[in-house]
């Protein structure tokens, strides 16, 4: 922590929790946050150790923590509790156990994290981040660490180290980019999830994520919108569509027996530009003649339980969807545009709330769940919907592969479908399409900088820094090809870019969903 900050607070008595979470340190104002300069190339920076150590998210309030079953604040014997929890996680998660042991510190991942590239802080290099946990693992769980201590990279879990945990495990968006380049596939996302779980268990959680999880459990979505408010919003959106296009496109809710249940991030219900994608899905369903519904209680595809590495919360959040399937009895389950939500839906739902098969009434001939992009692509291939590309002529789009979709899930039947299908949709909806640099797309895509529970304003610096590589790549195609639309398939990406893009001097109208483009281009009305 900076000396000046320490001096300022000389008189105040800081509790251990204050020290760890930086609770009494001044937080930057959103307006003061400056973006790193775009130099034309994504460069490996000169190291500036510790420059981002000050950045810490707000700590969750005691009642939030208690509602989640965590201690209200940092417990006195936290070292002991943390080590015990780590031991438990090592028994439960193969990934954690293996990844703790086998990193050889080859350095291949060191220049791959957007938060390192944007911040210059070497503690944001994936292996350095993982080492914060590995130090503790070595000290308490390995012979090597017990015998050789520091020489083997082991360290006592003290308050200073816990403070670093709180800073740097909240500068990881769990995007898995590092894993792509690691000879052993070491996934720092798994490690940061474990670290956050341990921090929650000793009483220091992150306010933004934990508050949202509590809201989701209580009300059914991250925005805390109750069923009544949700229905009102949807009705007014229906009116807007009808006014604009003159077609009665519906947004049905809680319709028992509808063919399709759509689960989408709640931001789609009224945030901008998210709602444009919701309108896009609705138009697709309308034009395809699909009988569909939303659920008022399973009104959230997002699931922040994953970000804090807590299986129980993730499972409980997802259970709302299973309940909705049982009650609304759809034949198909479709998920809207969202990165981490699609990872959880695609990779985890079958495990945590499944099996999602005939036993819950879903039809086996469709993917369970199916991504909205897969659904729309299929309709296009069958000619069931028509697009008028000229409706999007004002746009020269490019596509940002959301990392959770790119590296932790799939669309379609073939590996890599998650790259091709959204691109195919954009190309079907627009006359022009430009690709960003190869090193920044597909499996090598950079995170938007706001994933993994970082979408909170007191850590805007981190978010802006993390967005640097993507902004650089975007800026380059903007200059070379006049690109003016960043196509997205993630609610968090949309919120994040809307916020950080202006910091880089790009107007925010330029980001939007893939189904926003589809919604504009789709030809509504009678089919021949």
């Amino acid at each position, binding site marked *: 922590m900076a000396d000046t900050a320490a001096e300022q607070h000389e008189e105040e008595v800081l509790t251990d929790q204050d020290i760890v979470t930086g609770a009494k340190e001044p937080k930057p104002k959103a307006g003061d946050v400056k973006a790193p300069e775009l130099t034309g190339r994504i460069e490996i920076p000169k190291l500036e150790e510790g420059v981002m150590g000050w950045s810490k998210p707000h700590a969750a309030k005691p009642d939030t923590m208690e509602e989640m079953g965590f201690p209200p604040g940092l417990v006195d014997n936290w070292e002991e509790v943390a080590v015990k929890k780590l031991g438990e996680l090592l028994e439960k998660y193969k990934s954690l156990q293996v990844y703790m042991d086998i990193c050889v510190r080859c350095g291949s991942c060191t220049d791959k994290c957007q938060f390192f590239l944007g911040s210059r802080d070497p503690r944001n290099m994936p292996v350095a981040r993982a080492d914060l946990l590995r130090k503790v693992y070595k000290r308490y769980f390995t012979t090597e660490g017990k015998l050789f201590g520091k020489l083997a990279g082991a360290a006592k879990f003290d308050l200073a180290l816990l403070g670093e945990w709180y800073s740097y495990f909240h500068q990881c968006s769990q995007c898995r980019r590092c894993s792509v380049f690691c000879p052993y596939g070491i*996934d720092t996302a798994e490690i940061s999830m474990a670290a956050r779980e341990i921090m929650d268990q000793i009483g220091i959680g992150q306010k933004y994520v934990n508050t949202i999880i509590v809201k989701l459990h209580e009300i059914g979505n991250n925005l805390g919108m109750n069923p009544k408010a949700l229905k009102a919003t949807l009705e007014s959106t229906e009116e807007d569509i009808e006014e604009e296009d003159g077609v009665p496109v519906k947004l049905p809710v809680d319709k028992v027996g509808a063919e399709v249940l759509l689960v989408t991030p709640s931001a789609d219900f009224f945030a901008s530009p998210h709602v444009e994608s919701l309108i896009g899905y609705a138009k697709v369903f309308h034009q395809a003649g699909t009988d569909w519904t939303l659920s008022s209680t399973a009104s959230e595809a997002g699931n922040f339980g994953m970000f804090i590495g807590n299986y129980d919360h993730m499972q409980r959040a997802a*259970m709302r969807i299973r309940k909705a399937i049982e*009650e609304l009895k759809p034949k198909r389950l479709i998920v809207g545009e969202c990165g981490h939500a699609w990872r959880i839906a695609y990779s985890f739902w079958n495990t945590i709330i499944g099996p999602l098969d005939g036993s819950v009434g879903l039809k086996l001939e469709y993917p369970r769940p199916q991504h909205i992009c897969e659904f729309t692509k299929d309709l296009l291939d069958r000619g069931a919907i028509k697009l008028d590309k000229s409706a999007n002529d004002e746009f020269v789009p490019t596509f940002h592969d959301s990392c959770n979709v790119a590296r932790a899930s799939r669309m379609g039947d073939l590996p890599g479908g998650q790259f091709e299908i959204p691109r195919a949709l954009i190309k079907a909806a627009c006359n022009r399409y430009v690709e960003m640099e190869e090193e920044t797309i597909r499996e090598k895509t950079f995170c938007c900088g706001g994933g993994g529970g970082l979408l909170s304003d007191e850590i805007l610096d981190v978010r802006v820094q993390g967005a640097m590589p993507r902004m650089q790549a975007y800026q380059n195609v903007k200059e070379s090809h006049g690109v003016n639309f960043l196509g997205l398939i993630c609610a968090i990406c949309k919120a994040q870019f809307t916020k950080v893009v202006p910091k880089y001097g790009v107007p925010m109208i330029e980001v939007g969903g893939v189904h926003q483009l589809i919604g504009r281009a789709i030809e509504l009305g009678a089919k021949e």
Partner: protein
Amino acid sequence: MSGLSVFFLIYAYVALAVFIIGFLVRIWKYAVTPAPLKIPQTPAPVSGPGVLGRMILEVGIFKSLLKGNRITWLFGYVFHLGLLFALVKHYRFFFETSPGWLAYFTTFEMYAGLIMLGGLTMLFVLRLIVDRTAFISVMNDYILLLLLMAIASTGLLLKHYFRTNVTSVKEFMMGVVTFNPQDMPTEAFFIIHISLVFLLLIYFPFSKLMHSGGIFFSSTRNQIDNARDKYWKTPWAKSPESIDIPSNMTQDD
């Protein structure tokens, strides 16, 4: 039998026992720890043979490292290749007759130790001079490289300068593996070489060298991408039915 031989016999058995048991204990641990969720790093193979192919590329050509850093890949690969050849060469100390395919290796034989030493030296230099790796390195990373370099150097010296009596080495080694102890050769470089090797064997299961076995248990690399098609169970999780969730139907509007 000389005191030296007795000492080294004990050392040899301890080292081998620690290595074999230690290695197996670690691997056992990796094998039995559950993988609760499907986390293949996509795009991932959608079938078993596909995963096998992915593994072969990772182990055979260090594919991900090649993607990540060509220079580290080059020296890392060279070192491992040299190590492989050097290990194969040691065949003749353990067995009476050599199979025919070994002849292919003899072409590289002369260079194996040198290649290995060269790769290691470059890895050491890189670790020191690249600011990012220097930042993450701990003492044991350097010590391990130095240990391997010492083993390679003494091996080279033994082969080219202080020619040890191959037959007596062989007799000693055969004695060890057949539990029929023989006197050991007394050449200093041989003693240093073999002491370091035993030291490495003892350290092996407690160190990052476990990457050699651990890679096969890396969930991001060894899982099939079939989460939607195949039910994957978390052994320790609650059943979904036991979780109470508010109903869609009871909401009033």
